[in-house]
């Protein structure tokens, strides 16, 4: 009881200062947005992500401006007399790589890969995970047993090993197909953990009296699922998805680092790190540029996810937790 009382107090509070006489009801979304805006780190992380996204979207422009297409080598200007890559300079703003390609341009294309793979596979995993979790939790019975076991088994698989196996044995050479495969592989190994959480949520939501109330009104199962259960999962799904994005980005980078992710010559931050690892001791920028970009992106997504979670659920999950 008490937690609800101060919850109400807290929700009324922001308006009380300005217009105590007329307390306007605000939607949960508005409240969440108000909370989110006050989270400086989360807002900053959005700014960083937008900058990275702009950098990625404009990749062809960088290539055009520098005159360095991402897959073209410039042995004369990019490499020194010993064949070692040249560091950051006027011609190569972020240096050249071991083959004399422009790191600035390649990292921009790599950003595209990271963002596309990270976001798409996280969204795909969350859609499948939510579907499976809701189905298992809501239908119950044999379907639940089967789906729960399936998720358990997926989680027991050595994911990196199987991912490498999948990526290697499909004899793929085209960039597009390898991109699709990478997304599918990452989504496959993420959906189970996602589905397990959602299933737990659904099971606890099912016990709620408002579901019983809906049933006693004569609501069909489908209606209860879409009108009563799913809206209560939106916050959870949003938070989980946003936190899944950085994990997926790291996953992609790891696969590409091992040479089984997105196929060359399309650069990815992971494959840039992998290819350059032999010359790091002399060419630090080959480690620093993709490394820092990768860290910055995952850090920003993590901060953003935390911010979204705090904004949506200031004290744990209100819809499903508590009594």
């Amino acid at each position, binding site marked *: 009881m008490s937690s609800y009382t101060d919850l109400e107090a807290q929700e009324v509070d922001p308006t009380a200062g300005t217009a105590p006489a007329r307390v306007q009801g605000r939607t949960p979304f508005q409240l969440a947005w108000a909370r989110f805006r006050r989270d400086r780190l989360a807002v900053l992380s959005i700014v960083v992500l937008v900058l990275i996204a702009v950098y990625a979207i404009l990749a062809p422009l960088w290539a055009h401006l520098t005159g360095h297409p991402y897959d073209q080598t410039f042995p004369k200007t990019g490499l020194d007399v010993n064949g070692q890559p040249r560091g950051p300079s006027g011609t190569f703003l972020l240096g050249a790589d071991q083959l004399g390609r422009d790191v600035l341009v390649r990292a921009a294309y790599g950003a595209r890969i990271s963002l596309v793979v990270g976001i798409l596979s996280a969204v795909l995993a969350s859609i499948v995970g939510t579907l499976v979790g809701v189905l298992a939790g809501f239908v119950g019975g044999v379907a639940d047993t089967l789906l729960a076991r399936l998720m358990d088994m997926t989680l027991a698989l050595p994911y990196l*090993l199987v991912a490498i196996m999948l990526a290697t*044995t499909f004899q793929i050479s085209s960039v597009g197909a390898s991109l699709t495969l990478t997304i599918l592989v990452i989504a496959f190994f993420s959906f189970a953990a996602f589905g397990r959480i959602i299933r737990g949520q659904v099971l606890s939501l099912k016990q709620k009296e408002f579901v019983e109330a809906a049933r006693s009104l004569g609501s069909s199962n489908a209606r209860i699922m879409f009108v009563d259960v799913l809206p209560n999962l939106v916050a959870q799904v949003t938070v989980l998805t946003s936190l899944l994005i950085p994990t997926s980005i790291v996953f992609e980078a790891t696969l590409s680092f091992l040479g089984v992710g997105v196929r060359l010559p399309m650069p990815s931050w992971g494959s840039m790190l992998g290819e350059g690892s032999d010359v790091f001791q002399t060419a630090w920028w080959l480690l620093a540029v993709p490394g820092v970009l990768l860290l910055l992106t995952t850090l920003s997504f993590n901060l953003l996810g935390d911010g979204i979670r705090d904004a949506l659920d200031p004290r744990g999950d209100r819809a499903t937790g508590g009594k």
Partner: protein
Amino acid sequence: MIRFVIRRLLYAVIVLWLVSTLVFVFLHVSPVPVERVIGGPRATTDTLNQIRRNLGLDQPVIVQYGQFLGRLLHANLGESYINGEPVTTLIGDRLPTTLWLVFGAGILWFVGGVVTGVLSATRARSLWDRVVTVFVLVGLSTPPFVMALVLLYLFATKLSEAGVYFFEAGPPLQMHFWRRMILPWIALAFLMVAAYTRLTRGAMLDVLGEDYVRTARAKGLSRRRVVYKHGLRAALTPVVTQFGIDLGALIGSTIVTEKVFGLQGVGQLVYQSIALGDTPVIIGVTLMVTFFVIMANLLVDIGYSFLDPRVRLS
């Protein structure tokens, strides 16, 4: 309890069978042409067919699967296509390196994570807590292989230029053991320390807010005693659970660390085998890793019943 263990072991057998079948089917649907790997680029069709016959690859898939299952029942994982060595020997040679890597890193991250987590939970909102929060965020956002590359760059490359040797690569494992392992341990543990700090801190804060902890304080027990006797024990339960699961799972994901630091462990073995299409080795390692994951989960569940008296296994 015994019935519980037996049931879980039966379940483990089923999962192992399913996983091996899955990998078997998968590798047969879309194989790397191993005869090409062995025979080399200039081998004639006859040679290639001869290699296939020698390996038994010319028989129908269902026959191969039967032979495979038959061997499995005798705990025989078969022989490598590439060098004919028994898979168990190959794995046995490589396993110690991987186990040292995983358990060393495990101790490091468990101790590191729990200590940092407890310290920051008991000093919530202090400067220390804030520093830890930042560390956790950065740690969780750092891909393990980037960490490994950075460590290698800083300590192995730059310091050895300065005459300080932190790192040795290459076999055998026994020589310069510490110097060889310390960087891989840190690289592998870094992200996990962050994760465990967060986990411990959260669990500890939850426990310290519980009624019975407040009651213990109200009874007049010292803060130290309440935190370390009542709080820590309850808070550690979820952390230990996660530890068992992660330890099991990690055995399958040391590939990157082993590759970066040149450790000849199981990870490298399977990575190379996948590229070569050495199916028996791939299946063998997959089975072994899955076995570790399942065993870790089982041990966690058993350990749970000791840590938490409310849980009884049946």
